[in-house]
């Protein structure tokens, strides 16, 4: 019995230690569900978040600090923002950093670290057809990730409206980025549908 107890707690501590904590997101987004089974990528990700109030945010996965630096440098130069190193560091070095303002408000936005921004109302990146700043952001990301792989990932809230998504989609098209992914919650395939029959026939759970 003693040995079994040892094994149980060894396993327990192993699982607790290896479990990854869900990073506390500054933004809470309820994603829609789909039957897709492919896990969303975590590295080399340019994540565009659309929250329930149709505000659009941009963030780059924390592992890609070099690309983050390139992106913020490019935007700072292209828009004549003259961002200081400290301001850039708030985007580059801090985990979970994101951009949620038009270019004009970027300097004051970057005076704060992501932790300080929790609970503060932000306008979001403009994506309407007349004034779509996402185009410049995607262009900057595209050149920063050149030579490597970039996953464009859109994470939208159930309650977000289509025009916000349309704006993001148009920004992709303008940059010739035709492939992107949409984050969803997995659900099982409804029984009796065509896909269900296909999966049964092939014995695999693959979609597409």
């Amino acid at each position, binding site marked *: 019995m003693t040995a079994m107890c040892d094994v149980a707690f060894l396993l327990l501590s192993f699982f607790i230690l290896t479990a990854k904590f869900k990073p506390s997101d500054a933004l809470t987004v309820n994603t829609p569900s789909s039957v897709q089974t492919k896990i969303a990528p975590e590295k080399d990700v340019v994540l565009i978040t659309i929250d329930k109030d149709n505000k659009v945010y941009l963030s780059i996965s924390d592992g890609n600090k070099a690309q983050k630096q390139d992106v913020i440098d490019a935007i700072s130069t292209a828009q004549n923002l003259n961002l200081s190193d400290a301001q850039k560091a708030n985007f580059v070095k801090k985990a979970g950093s994101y951009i949620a303002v038009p270019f004009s408000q970027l300097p004051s936005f970057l005076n704060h670290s992501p932790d300080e921004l929790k609970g503060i109302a932000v306008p979001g990146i403009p994506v309407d057809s007349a004034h779509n700043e996402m185009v410049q952001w995607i262009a900057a990301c595209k050149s920063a990730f050149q030579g490597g792989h970039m996953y464009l990932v859109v994470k939208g809230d159930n309650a977000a409206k289509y025009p916000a998504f349309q704006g993001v989609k148009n920004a992709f098209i303008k940059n010739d980025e035709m492939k992107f992914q949409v984050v969803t919650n997995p659900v099982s395939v409804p029984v009796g549908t065509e*896909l269900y029959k296909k999966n049964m026939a092939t014995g695999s759970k693959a979609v597409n």
Partner: protein
Amino acid sequence: MAEMDTSGGGGHKKGGPGVKKGKKLSTRVDLTPMVDLGFLLITFFIFTTTVSQPTAMKIFLPKDVDKPEEQNKVKASAVLTIMLGKNDQVYYYEGDDPTKLQPTNYKAVRDVILDKKRRTDTADFVVVLKPTKDASYKNVVNILDEMTIDAVKRFALVDLVSPYEADLIKKTEDANGVK
């Protein structure tokens, strides 16, 4: 492991004169509940860690083609147009006649798609998805997912809802009391 040394200090003589020896009690602890608890926790952690991984739906956008000769032609009779309205309403029509607009919802739209699919040549069948500005992001993802579920090979996500179509949707909404 779970025992204590209850024998006295080494120096005492056992059972010396005048020393009344108490009955020696076992200090072994029953470990069964602890093991149970351990495995219960393991099961709990395994179940909670693997379930909530988000998945990704891949979307490939078509390139805009200006030249008419490079555009894909579709047979009007093989087209099913699905428009996404407000309040989770779906409107559809077959072919190129928007006046045949019919309202439905996200549950019933599967039968509409499958019915049309059955009646059309597989090579020609195209579904055109037109979200209106009142449609939510969830609606768009749901209908794209529906394409996967119903194994529709060719579908297009189109932005332009013509004013004529918008007007028809509005009329249907008014008739059905959708606010």
